[in-house]
C-alpha cells in the first residue's frame, strides 16, 4: 500500500472513532505530536511533584501530611503510566527524561511558580488539578489508545485531588482571619497561572488545527478555558472568596462568564524559562537524576550478576 492509502485508512479510523494502537501504521507527524504531548504531560506530572513536595515536611496535621504525601505519590504514578504510554511510540523513558533535563522538552509552566504558604496546597489541588482535569477528561477520548487508557486511570485520581484541594481551602475559609487571608492570597496568586495552563488563544495556537483533525485534542484551548472559568466562578462562592478579576461577570446572552485578559507577556516569559522557579525545578530534577545514577548502575550490575549466577547454576 502506498502512503496515500495508508493515510486514508488512518484518517478513516480516526473519523470512525477507532483507537490507533502502537502497531498500527500512523503518519510520522502523528507519532511525533503524540510523543511530544505525552512526554510533556509525563514531565509535568514529575516536575509537578516539586511544588507540593515543598510542603510535605511542614504539613499542619498528620492527616494532611498523609493526604499530601499520597497525592504527590499519585503524581509519580501518573508520570510512570505516561512514560510507559510514550514508550509504545518507540522512545525510551531514559531518552524522554534526557530531553527534559536538556531543556528540549517542556512541562506545564504552572509548576514554575513557588508554593509560599500552606494554602497553596489547597489552591493547587482546586485550580491546577482542576484545570488539568478539564484537559484530561477530553484526553480520555483521544485517538491514541495507550494515551486514552492512561488518562482514564489518571482522571479518577485527579478529581480526587481536586476535591481534597478544595477541602483544604474550605477549612481555611472557615478558620481564623489569618487563615482566610492565606486562602484568598493563594487564590490570587494561582488564578491567572491556572488560566494560562490552557495555552495560547486558539487564533495563536500553532498545533491546534491538525491535533483536532487527528482527534488528539477534541476541544480548543479557549473552549476548555471557558469551561474552567465557568466552573470556578461558581465554586469560589462556596468558599466566600473572590477570583482576582474585575471583569469576571455572568453573561446571560452567552450563558458563560466573561473574564479578563491573561497577561500574555508573563505567559511567554515563563514558557521561555524566566518564571520564578524554572531554574530551581529543572535543577532539582537534574540533581535527583544525577545523584541517582550510581543507584541505577548498581541495580543494573546486580541484576546482571544474578542472571549470570542463575545461568551458571
Amino acid at each position: 500500500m502506498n502512503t496515500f492509502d495508508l493515510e486514508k485508512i488512518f484518517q478513516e479510523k480516526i473519523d470512525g472513532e477507532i483507537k490507533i494502537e502502537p502497531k498500527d501504521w500512523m503518519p510520522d507527524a502523528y507519532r511525533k505530536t503524540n510523543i511530544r504531548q505525552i512526554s510533556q504531560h509525563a514531565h509535568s506530572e514529575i516536575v509537578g511533584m516539586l511544588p507540593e513536595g515543598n510542603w510535605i515536611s511542614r504539613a499542619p496535621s498528620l492527616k494532611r501530611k498523609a493526604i499530601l504525601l499520597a497525592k504527590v505519590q499519585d503524581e509519580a504514578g501518573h508520570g510512570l503510566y505516561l512514560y510507559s504510554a510514550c514508550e509504545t511510540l518507540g522512545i525510551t523513558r531514559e531518552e524522554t527524561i534526557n530531553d527534559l533535563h536538556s531543556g528540549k522538552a517542556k512541562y506545564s509552566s504552572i509548576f514554575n511558580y513557588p508554593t509560599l504558604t500552606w494554602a497553596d496546597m489547597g489552591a493547587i489541588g482546586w485550580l491546577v488539578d482542576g484545570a488539568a482535569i478539564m484537559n484530561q477528561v477530553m484526553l480520555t477520548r483521544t485517538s491514541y489508545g495507550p494515551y486514552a487508557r492512561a488518562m482514564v486511570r489518571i482522571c479518577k485520581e485527579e478529581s480526587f485531588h481536586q476535591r481534597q484541594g478544595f477541602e483544604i481551602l474550605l477549612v481555611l475559609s472557615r478558620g481564623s482571619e489569618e487563615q482566610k487571608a492565606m486562602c484568598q492570597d493563594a487564590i490570587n496568586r494561582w488564578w491567572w497561572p491556572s488560566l494560562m495552563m490552557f495555552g495560547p488563544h486558539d487564533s495563536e495556537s500553532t498545533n491546534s488545527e491538525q491535533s483536532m483533525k487527528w482527534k488528539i485534542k477534541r476541544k480548543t484551548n479557549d473552549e476548555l478555558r471557558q469551561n474552567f472559568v465557568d466552573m470556578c466562578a461558581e465554586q469560589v462562592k462556596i468558599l466566600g472568596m473572590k477570583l482576582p478579576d474585575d471583569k469576571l461577570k455572568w453573561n446571560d446572552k452567552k450563558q458563560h462568564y466573561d473574564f479578563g485578559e491573561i497577561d500574555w507577556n508573563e505567559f511567554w516569559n515563563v514558557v521561555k524559562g524566566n518564571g520564578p522557579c524554572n531554574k530551581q525545578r529543572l535543577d532539582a530534577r537534574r540533581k535527583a537524576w544525577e545523584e541517582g545514577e550510581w543507584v541505577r548502575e548498581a541495580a543494573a550490575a546486580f541484576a546482571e550478576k544474578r542472571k549470570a549466577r542463575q545461568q551458571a547454576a
Partner: protein
Amino acid sequence: MNQLLIDYTLHLADNSLILGQRNSEWCGHGPVLEQDIAITNISLDLIGQARNFYQYAAQLINAQDKSEGPKAPAPLERGFGGEVTEDSLAYLRKEREFSNCLLVEQPNKDWAQTILRQFFFSQYQYLLFEQLQNTKDEQLAAIAEKSLKEITYHLRWSGEWVIRLGDGTEESHQRMIKAIDELWRYTGEMFTPAEYEKTFGIDFNKIKEDWSQKVKIIFDEASLIPPLGGGGAAFMQTGGKTGKHTEHLGYILTELQYMQRAYPRCEW
C-alpha cells in the same frame, strides 16, 4: 502503670513518625521513579502507624486527665479545644519530650544510608511487633498486629536493596560500608530497654540475638561485614529513648511543627 503505658505508646509513635518524616524527604527526589514511589509508600505506612499510636496515647491521657483532675500535661495547655489529640502530641511536644530511637532521626544522606537505616529499623520493628502482638494490652497488640503486614514488606524491600547495593558496583559497595560506619553505633539502643519498655513482656535479649542473626544473613549475601564482626564490642550511642537526642531532632521538629507553632489553635 498507666503512665508507663502512655510513655511506651508515645515512644512507639515517635519512632514511626520521625522515620516517616525522614523518608518523606525523598518524595520527588528519588533515584528512579519506582523507588520514589516505594519509599513514599513506606513513609505513608510509618505515618499511619504513628497516628494509630498517638491516637491511643491521646485517649489514655484524656482518660487519665478526667480521673486525676486538672493536672494537665504540657501539650494540653496549648489548645486543641482542651483535649490531647494525635496532632497535639506530634506537633506540640518538644525535643526532650520525644523518645524515638536515635537511629530514626539520622539524616537521609544518600540512598545507601537511607536503605540501611530502613533495614536496621524494619528488622528491629518486625521482631519487636511479633512479640508485641501478644502483649496484654489489647490496643497495642492490635496496632502491632496490623502493622506487621506492612513491616514485612518494608523489611523485604530494604533487605533486597542492601544486597543489591552491597553486591552491585564497587561504588555502591563502598557507600554501603560508609553507611554501616555511620549507622551501626545507633543500633544498640534499640535493644536496651528504657524503664517504660520493661513491663510489656518483651524479651529484648531475644530481639537482639535474632536481629544480629538476620542482619548477618543479609550482610553475607551482600558481601558486607558488620563492625568488629558484629560482636558486642562496638560502642553504642544511647539516649533517644529518654529524650537525649542527636542534634538532628531539633531541626526535624522545627520543620514538622512549624505550622502549629506559627498559627496556634487552628483547625487545618
